[in-house]
């Protein structure tokens, strides 16, 4: 095989590899969701972040407006401190509240922002004061069981309970 022909095939081989890498990064990976737009940072303290991870999306009304930058633990307030990178184009009022939500029943967790009514917007490095922790399934179940037990206890005390409540035995 002549030299030029070998060079051509080697070049094609390396190009194929580059194309495969681009495919993996853009089509299979999340490079296309990286935005290189300028950002400003916000922090929020949560009692419990559940399964929130760094790089999780920050959404408002379902639209991605930023990403979680890093999650640390503050050993003075014993709360999780979540640093958010917000896109410069989206401004939020100072009384915006943040909550940790789950996409779908078993999906990944993200931060949902609900805008408030304040006239001033967050400055760079601002802090979200109103936060709501992640829902922990165990707490939810124990709360439910506690409520049920309480209802049953109170219904057995009253003899004139409505017929629809199940008898406690």
């Amino acid at each position, binding site marked *: 095989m002549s030299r030029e022909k070998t060079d051509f095939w080697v070049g094609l081989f390396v190009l194929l590899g580059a194309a*495969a890498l681009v495919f993996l990064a853009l089509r299979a990976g999340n490079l296309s969701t990286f935005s290189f737009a300028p950002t400003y940072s916000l922090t929020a303290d949560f009692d419990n972040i559940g399964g929130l991870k760094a790089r999780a999306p920050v959404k408002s009304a379902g639209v991605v407006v930023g990403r979680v930058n890093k999650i640390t633990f503050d050993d003075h307030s014993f709360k999780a401190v979540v640093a958010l990178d917000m896109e410069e184009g989206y401004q939020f009022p100072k009384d915006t509240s943040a909550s940790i939500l789950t996409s779908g029943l*078993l999906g990944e967790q993200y931060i949902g922002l609900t805008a408030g009514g304040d006239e001033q917007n967050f400055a760079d490095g601002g802090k979200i004061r109103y936060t709501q922790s992640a829902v922990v399934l165990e707490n939810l179940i124990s709360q439910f069981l506690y409520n049920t037990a309480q209802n049953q206890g109170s219904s057995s005390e009253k003899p004139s309970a409505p017929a629809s409540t199940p008898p406690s035995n």
Partner: protein
Amino acid sequence: MSGLIQAISALGHWVRDSISGIGGFTRFVSSLVARSGIALSRPRLVSQQVHFIGNYSLLIIVVSGLFVGFVLGLQGYYTLNRYGSEEALGLLVALSLVRELGPVVTALLFAGRAGTSLTAEIGLMKAGEQLAAMEVMAVDPMRRVLVPRLWGGIIAMPVLAAVFSMVGILGGWVVGVLLIGVDAGAFWSQMQNGVDVWNDVANGVLKSVVFGVTVTLVALYEGWFARATPEGVARATTRTVVVGSLAVLGLDFLLTALMFGN
């Protein structure tokens, strides 16, 4: 009493042997690195080897990648379907290929397809006294023969692994989306949500580079130190596959623990 002495000296022999083996391999590697300048001054030698090692391995890599993707698609669907989450099929196929199967299976095939041919070629050159003839002509055979093959292998392996992963994902897509009927949008969007460019794709590429260095070095070492007989070359070729594959599997465990441990 003499049996005990024999056992102890066998142990001592084994220790000395393995230490001198490690030392020989290290000296071999360092002398290859010291002569690597030829890869820059005569790049055509390297590109010939990329052609020989890479282009000719492309067919087996593409076909294996396609079938691994098919099987992942089928088996993944079978399991995920039980939990009603067959949309995660794309994520499963992409993560397993990009993180593990792409680099590892490519390296195993690479050891079998390219490593053996390197060992056999160099071993036969030695048996035919071509290497000695080069030395007589004042051509350093290590520099002229081994270094271009080393760099050819190091360049070819990551390319092959990336092609393997891409073809595998496409194979999973063919089975999952086209044949079984998983929703195409969910297939790709779950994949994009779950596969991180730096954590998963870049670490996979790093793995494939490490495996390329390992397999090529083992193949060259075995060929260079093969006994110059037909039997010696046959043994060296076998050892290339066995040692190369075991090294890849062991290194993969280590690298996975380091990269994805937390």
